């Protein structure tokens, strides 16, 4: 419907009436007409054009939102295609390219959607439509199909966080109500993530999609399907390797923990995966990994803990020795966690030898005094946990150090002897001291 068409429609007196003003029998038809009206798209990039018409559409949309929220009996079968058509017209569009090629989602301000005054109301309307008591998925599924979902998913790349927030709710409701679309949605999200991790490292809606996945994972039936386990290992774990992890890490960690609460036997592959992808050059990421690991340990079963404690604490031992004080601090803070402490206590004979050398060394060598103070707390805890082992390790450490010192001293003396020999030889032959 072109702009000229819209003006004609405006001039029709019946359309200027509110839905609540007409008798109930006429409401469904008026509803359809107003929906059709809202299919007209206005250009918001030009801020001065069509101000009156834009306002009119906005108020119509507002009216539709209210109407859908409270009225009864408005949802005829004819309404469904019109609703979907109106929503599609308004929201499905090619997203504008990013302002600069180097748009850094962590640093730069996002470009907000200019047509938000209308767009927001369309989303609002659609959500209430989906949530309406009158809504029947069996009718709607003819119009909300795979093609619709695919286009919806593409919109998640919008730079506007408000739009992504609405899309999140929309997709969540669709997933909940359309059982037939669920597998398709999961597969498409899968594709998006894989493309993101292995091809582009660009997609703005990862956090929102993960949030939806969180609510899906939370609802998994037991025993877990193989498909879901594959998703965890092949998609969620590799997601940790992406440079922009900080934008969606909270949601990702939540998904991981939910998986482990559903099926604790997944703990070992998950932790081994994290250890394999442990950040080597980015300290900020290391701190995130440590946070996630602590969340996992908070819910870990003791039998699972025993399986991964060795590689786990070898990594923690490295973190504790990190010259980056935030990494060391975060790792040391594990010892303030009561549950983790209880696990360590039960297995101190394995864990203490792994941690001991780094702890002792950094107590003497670390540049940061706050770290040294935290190390004292950890060593004290170990001392009280297992005095005999601690004393043994201290004695071994001391004798090793003494042996090293002696070696160094011997080496220095050897060099000194050689130097003296050289000098003597030089003097004997011609009396001139060689330079």
């Amino acid at each position: 419907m072109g702009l000229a068409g819209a003006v004609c429609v405006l001039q029709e007196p019946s359309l200027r009436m509110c839905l609540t003003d007409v008798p109930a029998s006429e409401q469904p038809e008026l509803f359809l007409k107003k929906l059709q009206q809202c299919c007209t798209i206005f250009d918001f990039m030009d801020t001065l054009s069509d101000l009156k018409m834009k306002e009119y559409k906005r108020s119509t949309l507002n009216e539709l939102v209210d109407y859908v929220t409270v009225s009864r009996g408005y949802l005829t079968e004819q309404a469904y295609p019109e609703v979907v058509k109106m929503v599609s017209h308004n929201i499905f569009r090619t997203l504008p390219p990013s302002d600069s090629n180097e748009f850094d989602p962590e640093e730069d301000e996002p470009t907000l959607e200019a047509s938000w005054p209308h767009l927001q109301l369309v989303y609002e309307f659609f959500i209430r439509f989906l949530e309406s008591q009158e809504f029947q998925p069996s009718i709607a599924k003819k119009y909300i199909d795979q093609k619709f979902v695919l286009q919806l998913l593409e919109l998640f790349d919008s730079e506007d966080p408000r739009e992504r927030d609405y899309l999140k709710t929309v997709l969540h409701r669709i997933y909940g109500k359309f059982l037939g679309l669920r597998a398709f949605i999961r597969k498409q999200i899968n594709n998006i993530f894989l493309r993101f991790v292995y091809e582009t490292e660009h997609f703005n809606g990862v956090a929102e999609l993960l949030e939806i996945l969180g609510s899906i994972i939370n609802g998994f039936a037991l025993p877990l399907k193989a498909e879901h386990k594959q998703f965890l290992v092949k998609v969620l774990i590799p997601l940790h390797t992406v440079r922009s992890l900080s934008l969606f890490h909270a949601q990702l960690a939540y998904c991981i923990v939910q998986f482990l609460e559903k099926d604790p036997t997944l703990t070992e592959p998950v932790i081994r995966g994290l250890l394999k992808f442990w950040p080597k050059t980015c300290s900020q990421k290391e701190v995130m990994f440590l946070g996630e690991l602590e969340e996992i340990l908070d819910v870990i079963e003791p039998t699972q803990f025993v399986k991964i404690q060795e590689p786990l604490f070898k990594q923690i031992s490295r973190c504790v020795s990190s010259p980056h004080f935030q990494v060391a601090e975060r790792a040391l803070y594990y010892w303030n966690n009561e549950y983790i402490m209880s696990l360590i206590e039960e297995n101190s004979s394995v864990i203490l030898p792994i941690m001991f050398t780094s702890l002792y060394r950094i107590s003497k060598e670390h540049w940061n005094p706050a770290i040294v103070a935290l190390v004292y707390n950890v060593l004290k805890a170990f001392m009280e946990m297992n005095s005999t082992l601690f004393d043994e390790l201290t004695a071994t450490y001391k004798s090793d150090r003494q042996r090293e010192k002696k070696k160094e001293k011997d080496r220095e003396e050897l060099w000194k002897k050689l130097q003296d020999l050289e000098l003597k030889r030089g003097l004997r032959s011609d009396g001139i001291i060689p330079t």
Partner: protein
Amino acid sequence: SSSRASCNMDAFKLMKELRVNHEHEVYYLPKETGLMLIESTTRDDNRISAKCRNAKVEDLWSLTSFFGYSTQTFVLAVNLLDRFLAMMRIQPKHLSCVSLSCLHMAAKVTEEECNLTPTDELIRIGQCRFTVADLGRMEKIVAEKLNFNSKAITALTFLHLYHQILLSHSTDRKETLNLEKLEAQLKACLCRISFSKAKPSILALSLLRQEIEAIQSEDMLEIACHIQRHLKIADGELLLWRERVAQCLSDYASPECSKPNHRKLQWIVSRRTAQNLHSYRIVPELPTIPEGCWDESESEDSCEDVMSSGEESLSSSLGSDAEGPFFPLHIRRQKHCQHLLT
């Protein structure tokens, strides 16, 4: 035979040294009535109890270990502490300051100056509330009350002497006692105030006898008895302390760990870390969507059939490429090509 003769000379000198120390050990004993008063005190805000003294000595051991001080420093510090507590009634809130003063004083005697930890660092790591000036004042008070001179005769003195005597008598060098192990055991005993009532010579001899019995050396047993006779230690007294030592050592070696019974340690982290600690644990906004067993049956998607047929095994090697029909073909092809290139 000349080496035998010099050996005998050494043995003779050592025995003499032993006797001299034995004569003077009584001057360094804490007052028994004072110790008993502490032992009999139960929960009281105004008096030191055995429990809080023991906890504080464990703290001293932690600090000794942390700063790399010797066992000698620790034993001397405990000796000073017990002697002071046995003669002065102090409030529990001052115990930290007193004990740290004793540690610092002992370290100044025993350790090399370059290895001395400065007092502000001692206070910081010990998580104490008083100042460097407070510590200095307390040191003066303790030194004055104890007529402190650097030589104190402790159980460690006797342990070292006994060890040297055993070495000097051993003919074949096959059996030697591990001195470090004995020192660790002594440390464990000193963490209980009851052992401060024992004469150092007897406490050390008890530890020696327990270890000799453990390794079952008849030669060493003979020498130990010789020492006991030389110092005129009564059988009954030795037996009493040996029993107590045995009990203590079995607790020390037991696999059950002890939970700290005193104040919780302070965990001070930087502001940034503190902010990040729990702030990002998200509270889910979206309600859970339960998975139903009927999910797949209504779907028109063809991939459903492939997945519902049998369980796929979870590959535990994460290096393996994307496999299985769940993953898009072009990703699989890409990985395959990469494989060919390497």
